[in-house]
């Protein structure tokens, strides 16, 4: 064995070890985050804070899943919110009408989302850029219109009223606010961990290749349509989970959950937080919800304030907050490297 071959042979397990290490690191960070979040109720009795974190969980999952499409694959969806609404309505309806245990309704909702997302995605992912964006928007409006017009099932413009039954399952009572809070945090952390795994897997790099140059990707043997459809469906599942959390939080589902403005908020969150880092959308979610909660308290013209904030990030920084922070740290590191003797 030559020196080069020996070096290569030694490096093979090193690559595997590095991959394992990053996976364990992510797992540890997720565990730590969950422990911190789960222990908040012990130190802060504020119901508003817990509510805020529950909403962050719902919108964080939704926005991060949108980033799998926008940031990782280059597919700008204007209709991703339809799956948020689908999750809320699917879960709410199943719980109201069947009374099955929560996990069963949860899985059933995800199955329904998979079927719907596959059917819609099979049509949409054939299209590129603005055509993809607008056809997804059209499907969102279709679903929203269906919710409004099929009043006997969905409650029409009044939404699903009367609350959602939440039978206790394995000691978890989702009618209890703290239980609901911890369940939401668990779903958020598990969801983020799974999405992180997708982003860092070989499939995640396939998505990056498609984003950069879909034509070239097909000339190295990648079935671009299938890869796009797969991520479209996976992203829909996480958005749907966000919708389920929201349905549990408000104990119902409303047409606004499936309206195009939800997709707009998702895009806004991604612009705020940034799409080049995995946690950008999560940071954007916290920012948007904080802005929403504070600005609406201070003025009725909150739309103007949010518009100015968007302009600041889009025109001023030309990137999201996390993009900016990461770039700033990279520049400082490079600068320090250059100054070092």
């Amino acid at each position: 064995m030559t020196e080069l071959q020996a070096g290569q042979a030694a490096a093979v397990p090193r690559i595997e070890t590095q991959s394992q290490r990053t996976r364990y690191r992510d797992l540890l960070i997720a565990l730590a985050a969950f422990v911190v979040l789960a222990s908040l109720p012990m130190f802060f009795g504020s119901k508003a804070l817990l509510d805020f974190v529950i909403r962050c969980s719902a919108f964080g999952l939704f926005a991060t899943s949108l980033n799998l499409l926008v940031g990782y694959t280059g597919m700008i969806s204007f209709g991703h919110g339809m799956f948020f609404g689908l999750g809320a309505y699917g879960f709410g309806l199943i719980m109201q009408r069947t009374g099955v245990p929560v996990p069963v309704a949860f899985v059933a909702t995800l199955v329904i989302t998979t079927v719907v997302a596959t059917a819609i995605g099979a049509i949409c992912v054939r299209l590129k850029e603005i055509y993809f964006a607008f056809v997804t928007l059209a499907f969102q409006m279709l679903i929203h219109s269906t919710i409004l017009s099929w009043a006997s099932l969905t409650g029409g413009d009044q939404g699903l009223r009367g609350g959602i039954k939440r039978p206790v399952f394995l000691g978890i009572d989702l009618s209890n606010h703290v239980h609901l809070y911890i369940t939401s945090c668990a779903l958020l952390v598990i969801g983020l961990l799974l999405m992180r795994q997708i982003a860092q897997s070989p499939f995640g790099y396939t998505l990056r290749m498609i984003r950069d140059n879909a034509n070239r990707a097909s000339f190295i043997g990648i079935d671009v349509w299938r890869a796009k459809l797969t991520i479209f469906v996976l992203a829909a599942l996480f958005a749907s989970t966000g919708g389920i959390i929201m349905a549990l939080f408000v104990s119902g589902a409303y047409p606004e959950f499936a309206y195009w403005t939800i997709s707009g908020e998702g895009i806004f969150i991604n612009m705020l937080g940034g799409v080049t880092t995995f946690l950008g959308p999560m940071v954007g979610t916290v920012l948007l919800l904080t802005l929403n909660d504070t600005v609406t308290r201070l003025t009725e013209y909150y739309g103007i304030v949010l518009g100015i904030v968007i302009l600041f990030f889009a025109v001023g920084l030309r990137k999201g907050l996390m993009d900016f922070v990461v770039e700033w740290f990279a520049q400082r590191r490079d600068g320090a490297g250059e100054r070092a003797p």
Partner: protein
Amino acid sequence: MLEIRGLSKSFGGVKATDNVSLDFADGSLTAVIGPNGAGKSTFFNLITGALKPDSGQIMLNGVDMAGRTPPDIVRHGIGRAFQVASIFPSLTVHETMLAAVCADQRRAGVLHRRFPLAETRDRAEQAMELLGLANKRDRTASTLSHGDQKLLDIALALVLEPKVLLLDEPTAGMGTEERWRMIDKVYELWEKQKITVVFIEHDMDIVFKIAPEIVVLCYGRILATGTPDAIRRNEAVIEAYLGTEHHAGVAL
């Protein structure tokens, strides 16, 4: 063995490829030349599945590739590099190679493991070594020089271990020195890898120096095929494309 039989493609009333039949023997090195609009790139696009032929067959070791999708054709062993370097700007050279091997090993859809996969490493290393890109492994593709981007484009095709490699103007947009370095590299690859290489080239000095076989296309048809000497002496080729310069060179 790559056999093209009666390959035709029209755009409206224009015949871009008109009943082309050619054989490329295993391990051969062939240059495809012709004036602008001769149908050279269309010919490559038909072979690689970027365009569907109106008629004809593209037989690779007895299997017809005509009408198949690019990923399918790549998996059968026809790789290509593009006239304008077609790369993944945000990925590093190393990531590009590893991801390409992943795709070739049908692991592009793997979700439960982390990138990079250990079993993709050797081939990625070899391709980078072969193309002289190993020392630029951590550079993102967008920051590479034009020449290195072209090399990366070729490396992307080569790392898939194709039976047939199609290079669409590998020296396009390069200065004289860089151009010769690139073509020396192509020649070296052909010698080392023992694969069938077909390349489109406009620089006749390069073509006549390295290509044992030349195909001349004009208005989508084959004008001539043969050795460099035969092509240089072919009156139809001189009139349609070469002019007297290269012919005079032979006479001297």
